[in-house]
């Protein structure tokens, strides 16, 4: 989960890290008022989670309150398409109106996790303002890294190494050391997965000011970071993803026409992959998890039915902890609850498979049951490729009745 810039900055300010003066505004008039409070030239920034806003017109300088209002009017209520937002863009509901800062230098600074080394790491560069990948691509030596031993802090020598590498001296170096220390504390206290300040400005007066802030939170820590988790969840603009987050399943929109219900993340990814491999396109990624009951399955099916292009649903379950018979009962109840009346291909193997299949047969629902992964995926791909939806699947015994009879 990610926080909006204004939320991240308010947390930085709370931790004693300098940020520009300013506040959010929800209308052009409000932006005008915010600019008057600042009483000087401002910058108006669209509050969306996707990066690369500047190039997409999401960051505008305004010399007067009238200009600030005009900038806000051009952003609020629109969708901003950036290279990171996807083609639909992110809706802008609020803007951040901030004082302009006289910048001497722009640095890059981030705290994140080094998965290979299993530790937290600081990444810094003197070439702030650009994306870090861009900096690394131009000159890998321009990216500085310091690993932090789990449980210990950032040592003074590490702070000195970074400051030297960034070309900071005197008061600026001192301010940088303090900023590092405060940010690491914040990173840990909030269970961040990412805390990125880009750019981190060095002002003409050798102050260190965070001009932007990106905070990603560790989803697994939501139970002990409730306030933040709730805030971030409210910011999930997509209703389906919000619902998934609420009921505790993993759901990702894709742009195809085959809905997917799978247990386990690896198998769910593989299911999407095999559909693509066979020429089909999944409408979604969905891991229902180990404890999928009828309510959860119904909720999952409802989410899939909201995908506009869906023509069929592919259910791929490998029974382990989640027994096939329990899942089959949940599926039948879920199909009825959700009122799903499109073709459903079911592949159910593993613990209590035979019992599960019997339950599917006895349900009388027109489910297409296939044991083999590739055969099942092919069926789903074939149905999705048909020109129009064909609700009647019974001719030729394609529905589960004969399938189950054949499988003893």
């Amino acid at each position: 989960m990610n926080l909006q810039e204004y939320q991240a900055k308010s947390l930085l300010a709370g931790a004693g890290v300098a940020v520009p003066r300013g506040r959010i505004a929800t209308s052009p008039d409000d932006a005008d008022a915010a600019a008057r409070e600042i009483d000087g030239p401002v910058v108006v920034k669209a509050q969306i989670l996707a990066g690369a806003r500047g190039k997409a017109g999401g960051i505008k300088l305004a010399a007067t309150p009238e200009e600030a209002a005009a900038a806000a009017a051009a952003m609020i209520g629109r969708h901003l398409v950036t290279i990171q937002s996807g083609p639909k863009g992110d809706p802008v509901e609020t803007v951040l109106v901030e004082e302009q800062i006289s910048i001497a230098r722009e640095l890059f600074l981030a705290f994140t996790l080094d998965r290979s080394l299993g530790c937290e790491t600081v990444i810094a560069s003197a070439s702030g303002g650009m994306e870090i990948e861009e900096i690394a691509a131009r000159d890998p030596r321009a990216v500085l890294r310091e690993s932090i031993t789990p449980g210990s802090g950032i040592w003074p020598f590490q702070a000195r190494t970074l400051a030297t590498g960034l070309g900071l001296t005197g008061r600026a170096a001192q301010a940088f050391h303090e900023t590092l220390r405060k940010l690491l504390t914040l990173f840990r206290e909030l269970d961040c997965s990412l805390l990125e300040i880009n750019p981190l400005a060095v002002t003409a007066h050798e102050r260190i000011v965070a001009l932007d802030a990106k905070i990603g939170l560790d989803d697994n820590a939501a139970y002990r970071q409730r306030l933040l988790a709730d805030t971030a969840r409210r910011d999930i603009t997509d209703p389906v993803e919000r619902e998934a987050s609420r009921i505790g399943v993993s759901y990702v929109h894709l742009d195809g026409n085959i809905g997917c219900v799978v247990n386990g993340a690896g198998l769910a990814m593989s299911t999407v992959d095999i559909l693509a491999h066979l020429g089909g396109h999944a409408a979604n990624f969905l891991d229902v998890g180990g404890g999928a009951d009828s309510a959860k399955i119904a909720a999952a099916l409802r989410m899939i039915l909201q995908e506009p292009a869906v023509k069929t649903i592919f259910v791929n379950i490998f029974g382990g902890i989640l027994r096939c018979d329990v899942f089959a009962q949940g599926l039948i109840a879920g199909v009825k609850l959700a009122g799903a009346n499109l073709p459903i291909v079911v592949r159910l193997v593993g613990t209590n498979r035979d019992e599960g299949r019997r339950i599917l047969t006895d349900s009388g629902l027109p489910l297409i049951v296939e044991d083999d992964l590739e055969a099942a995926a092919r069926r789903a791909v074939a149905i999705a490729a048909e020109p129009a939806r064909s609700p009647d699947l019974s001719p030729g015994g394609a529905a589960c009745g004969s399938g189950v009879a054949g499988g003893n």
Partner: protein
Amino acid sequence: MGILLNRTSRVIVQGITGKEGSFHAGQMIAYGTRVVGGVTPGKGGTVHEGIPVFSAVSDAVRETGADVSVIFVPPPWAADAICEAAAAGVRLIVCITEGIPVRDTLLAVGEVNAHGARLIGPNCPGLISPAAAAKVGIMPGSIHMPGTVGVISRSGTLTYEVVHQLSARRLGQSTCVGIGGDAVIGTNFVDCLGLFEEDPETEAIVLLGEIGGSAEEEAAAFIKEHVTKPVFSFIAGRTAPPGKRMGHAGAVISHGQGGWAGKAAALAAAGVTVIENPARMGETVAAWFASRQAEKPAAVAAKKPGGRKRGGA
């Protein structure tokens, strides 16, 4: 006999009185695993479904001689459970729990390393060595059979899928290790590859990776230098969109890093057979065994006495 477990492994279950711990303790015993005790703080001295329960891991180790622990403790207390096991001298700690904050895992891995123990997981199905009748985890025992294919995976049900495909072709497994789907885990591909390379019972290795991080690239570098046995790999998430977390905490392509193509290319360059269709994993491994059989049947038969253990193969 496979890696990490053997017939004399003595297992305790942390969180045995909980729903998951209780159920899976029973399943492990039914498979043949020597479950010698359980731990739930405050419930020491009781007996849960025939298994003695202790309040502390150190008590359990002292009384039962346990050298392996499997953890079914909820996320807020799981890191503590890992550290307690490490401090009590448990050699192999298997953490099934999903949803532990990364910061806790970082600290717990540090403790485990400091005690010279090994952690499998967290967020994993555990491990199983069919020939040793040892199952320490939540995988369905019935799909496994003894054999010579070593399996290492970041996933749960995808591992069951490949095992299902292998067993259907009478290709048994030496050991299957689910290393876990989190961003930080105790034991990685490289550790397991090294163990499988040394294991005389393992003839071929299946490595199930997924998008996110660089564990597959690191595995590829290791394989190139140190692994002589054939390695087969499927990487899940080829079609995953960047920036989206695909179920597992660790399965996300971030800032252009951790994508399928880089992993597949690195593994292929290391001589690994990269499988693109997840329905053909078992078939691909079986084809290698068949071609080897056809090439030099005499050499294989004479290779090692353990070969007869493959029974019906």
